[in-house]
């Protein structure tokens, strides 16, 4: 942007906090400009200080942090030197912000409408009644249907997506000149995320504000930003227009970050032949009873999947799809309400407790949260020893050797044996979880979102490890994930789940390049490709799905997607849909697709 004065000028911003005997400075001298009408991405690893920087722009630091120095010039004044009353006037009015965890940001004790009203009245003269009316209008504007009712809701009664919209309503109440969005979509479903970012971008364009979008996801940066700032070790190490950043990153750290995206394998994992049905489910169903009610939560509805020996099958879906429950039923951590789980010919749902315990050495699970999965008081040695002790017993020294071998197998140093979980990072700990799962040589491993809490860079190395281990050991995986990139690199086949049912299945190549079911299509088109030459905002995709997922307590009579599908007809609403085999391992649950009434084309996005 030339000739125009920057909207915000940050110079040498420093934020730090004291620990006994030391001063830690996560933000060590950050400088950048923001121009009007610009969308700028701020990217960096977790813990790099992105959120701290965002907060510091408003003159705030989360305790015990303190702003140590620097200047933030806005409208000709340094925000960091303004008296309290004046900067409060600027916050919320001229600079708006939305944060990462929307439900935690809302006051849990006040109704949402009142809070929006307070935000409005903080910067505008208005009566309570006027403020309430304004709140209703804002909620309607940000896409919340039935705003008159929602305005009376409490924070805990809203879903993540709705709460985030409420925050936007608050932030945009007074048309700010700058909108700061701090990881606004982490934790939201993929389809909601795409919807949301689209809407935010359009609003920003309409009002002509600038936006600072703080995120770890390169896909978000590529598709929505004009310029990129890279934060590393407390400083801005690169500041480039988005295309240049992706094509020719200058700083070694940026190059590192982009490396995995440039190194994308072109092919899909080879299909596995033979050994089919090594692990399969047979009309697996799981209902959870509701307290004080006759109703049930229908989590999983007659799901039949099969995994061959040495194959990795992906199970994808958003929150509420039931994929995690399927994984848990496979491990008999939940008892299926109906249906069977068959491993190598044996129905494990029919085994008694003692037999099941023996069977468990053949099937293992890796959970999503690496820290939650291990006993915080145990050392790594204890953690790795446990499965050996339970299943094999024997001599302690021999077990220890096997534990060390397991660590080496996942590329970790044996000196970690004496460490405790809290001293290690998430990706290291997740490797240890994998080592623990493999230590008794199981035939089959369920991986339940193993990379979700990891930083994008760590995800890729973990997937590479899993792929390698599968080739070396010949184990089968059921890979549960909402992150399509990881599924694409690891799995041969994939099943897409929605509200407890499988809506489409086939090989990864088939499903990802040419999804047939409207939901799969929406899911795939919502996936943000880190390719700035083909930005989503430049080539807008027609809104694939509206609204939100129905409740699993009151499942619709006909097609579950009927309330959101752009191709819906009355027949869809009335008739329950059946998963129909299309040949070549392909299946779709949609009458209209099977009959050829609708034929969906999508570009390869993953």
């Amino acid at each position, binding site marked *: 942007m030339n000739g125009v004065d920057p909207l915000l000028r940050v110079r040498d911003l420093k934020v730090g906090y004291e620990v006994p005997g030391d001063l830690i400075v996560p933000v060590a001298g950050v400088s950048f400009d923001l121009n009007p009408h610009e969308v700028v991405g701020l990217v960096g690893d977790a813990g790099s200080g992105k959120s701290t920087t965002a907060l510091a722009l408003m003159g705030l630091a989360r305790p015990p942090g303190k702003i140590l120095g620097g200047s933030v010039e806005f409208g000709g004044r340094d925000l960091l030197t303004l008296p309290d009353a004046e900067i*409060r006037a600027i916050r919320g009015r001229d600079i708006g912000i939305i944060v990462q965890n929307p439900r935690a940001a809302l006051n849990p004790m006040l109704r949402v409408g009142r809070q929006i009203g307070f935000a409005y009245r903080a910067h505008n003269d208005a009566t309570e009644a006027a403020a309430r009316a304004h709140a209703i209008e804002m909620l309607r504007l940000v896409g919340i249907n039935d705003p008159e009712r929602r305005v009376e809701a409490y924070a805990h009664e809203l879903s993540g997506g709705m709460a985030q919209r409420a925050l936007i309503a608050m932030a945009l109440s007074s048309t700010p000149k700058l909108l700061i969005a701090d990881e606004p979509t982490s934790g939201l479903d993929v389809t909601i995320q795409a919807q949301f970012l689209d809407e935010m971008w359009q609003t920003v364009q309409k009002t002509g504000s600038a936006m600072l979008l703080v995120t770890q996801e390169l896909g978000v940066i590529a598709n929505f930003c004009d310029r990129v700032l890279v934060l590393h070790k407390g400083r801005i190490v690169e500041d480039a227009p988005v295309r240049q950043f992706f094509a020719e990153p200058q700083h070694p750290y940026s190059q590192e970050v982009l490396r995995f995206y440039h190194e994308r394998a072109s092919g899909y994992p080879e299909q596995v032949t033979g050994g089919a049905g090594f692990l399969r489910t047979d009309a697996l169903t799981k209902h959870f009873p509701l307290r004080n009610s006759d109703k049930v939560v229908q989590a999983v509805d007659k799901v039949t999947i099969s995994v061959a020996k040495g194959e990795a099958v992906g199970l994808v879906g958003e929150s509420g799809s039931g994929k995690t429950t399927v994984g848990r039923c496979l491990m008999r951590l939940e008892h299926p309400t109906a249906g069977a789980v068959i491993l190598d010919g044996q129905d494990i749902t029919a085994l008694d407790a003692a037999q099941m315990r023996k069977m468990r050495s053949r099937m293992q699970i890796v959970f999503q949260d690496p820290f939650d999965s291990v006993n915080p008081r145990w050392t790594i040695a204890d953690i790795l020893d446990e499965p050996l002790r339970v299943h094999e017993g024997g001599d302690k020294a021999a077990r220890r050797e096997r534990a060390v071998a397991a660590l080496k197998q996942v590329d970790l140093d044996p000196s970690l044996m004496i460490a405790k979980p809290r001293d290690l990072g998430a990706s290291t700990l997740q490797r240890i979880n994998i080592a623990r799962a493999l230590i008794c040589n199981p035939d089959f491993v369920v991986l339940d979102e193993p990379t979700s809490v990891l930083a994008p860079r760590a995800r890729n190395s973990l997937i590479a490890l899993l792929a390698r281990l599968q080739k070396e050991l010949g184990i089968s995986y059921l890979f549960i994930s909402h992150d399509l990139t990881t599924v694409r690199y690891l799995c041969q086949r994939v099943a897409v789940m929605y509200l407890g049912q499988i809506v489409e299945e086939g090989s990864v190549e088939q499903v990802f390049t040419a999804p047939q079911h409207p939901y799969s299509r929406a899911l795939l088109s919502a996936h943000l490709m880190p390719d700035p030459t083909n930005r989503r905002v430049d080539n807008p995709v027609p809104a694939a799905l509206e609204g939100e997922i129905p409740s699993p307590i009151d499942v619709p009579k006909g097609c579950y997607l009927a309330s959101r599908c752009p191709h819906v007809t009355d027949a869809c609403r009335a008739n329950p849909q059946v998963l129909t085999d299309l040949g070549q391992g392909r299946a779709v649950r949609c009458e209209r697709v099977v009959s050829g009434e609708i034929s969906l084309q999508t570009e390869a996005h993953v």
Partner: protein
Amino acid sequence: MLLRYITRRMLIGVVQLFCLVIAVFFLIRLLPADPVSRLVGLNSSPEGYEQAARQLGLDRPLFEQLSIYLGLSPDIAPGLLQGSLGVSWATGSTVGSEIANFLPVTLQLITLAFILAFIISIPVGMLGALNPGKAVDKGVFVYSLFAGSQPEFWWGLLFVYVFYFQLGVAPAPLGQLSPMTFPPESVTGFMLIDTLIAGEPAKFLEALHHLMMPVITLAFILSGPIIKMVRQNMLRALQSDFVLYANLIGLPRKRVARYALRAAMGPSMTLIGILYGFMLSGAVLVESVFSLGGIGQYAIRSVLAFDYPAIQGVVLVITAISLVVYLLLDLIHAAIDPRIAY
């Protein structure tokens, strides 16, 4: 919905109370103490002993005694179902009337003590929370630990020594009023109210004067845990995400402070209930030092005299009041914090 919750809580409370009454009933009868000897002396004749035992109803089988106590045999004697708590073995008056005399004294004392404790503790606790880590905060914190671990009876005595004996500003620890003063007619049982009803402001002031030290003593002890709780809850609220966000969107300071205060109040309610319940029986020590004649002293007297009906009556009444207080505070908590679902 609300009504159902209250009714359910009250039902559970009644059941709890009932179990407690029965438990206490059996407990004291199963202990080796001998109330009959207490009454007739250790050197009575066997006939005298038997007669006394019959008088107290202790010659009957255990379950018959229980059913009489509960009011299931009204022809023999009135019981709980008829609203009677029995007759005191030591004095001969009904337990109900005695408790009605003594209970208000304690209630008056602890209510005043709580009010004073709040007036001191909330600002002090907030002072600490608003300046975390600084000297003020450390001081507040150490004070709260100190005050909450003190023997109140000793402090009562200390105050008597300093303020009565040395400085002469406080009256002698001889009861609610000076022994020379004729007490007003007992209408509510609460001395302060009764003096006003009787239109005797001088006695009101005197009663207040006599209450001064016991109330200060109790308030001091209470200030420990209350400050600790206010400070902790306030700190947590001030560091919460939504307070940070409220600052981020530019809400005025006062509004943010109110956000934090409301969040801090909710979890405090449970502790207040527990403290109140504890004080109902714990105030006995201060009552003793100042000879106030409250339910605690009545309890001591009854226990040392092995006066079973009185003991049972005291336990029942105190527990009932505690349960009501708990329920009230839980309701207030739910009113403050909508996340608490019924």
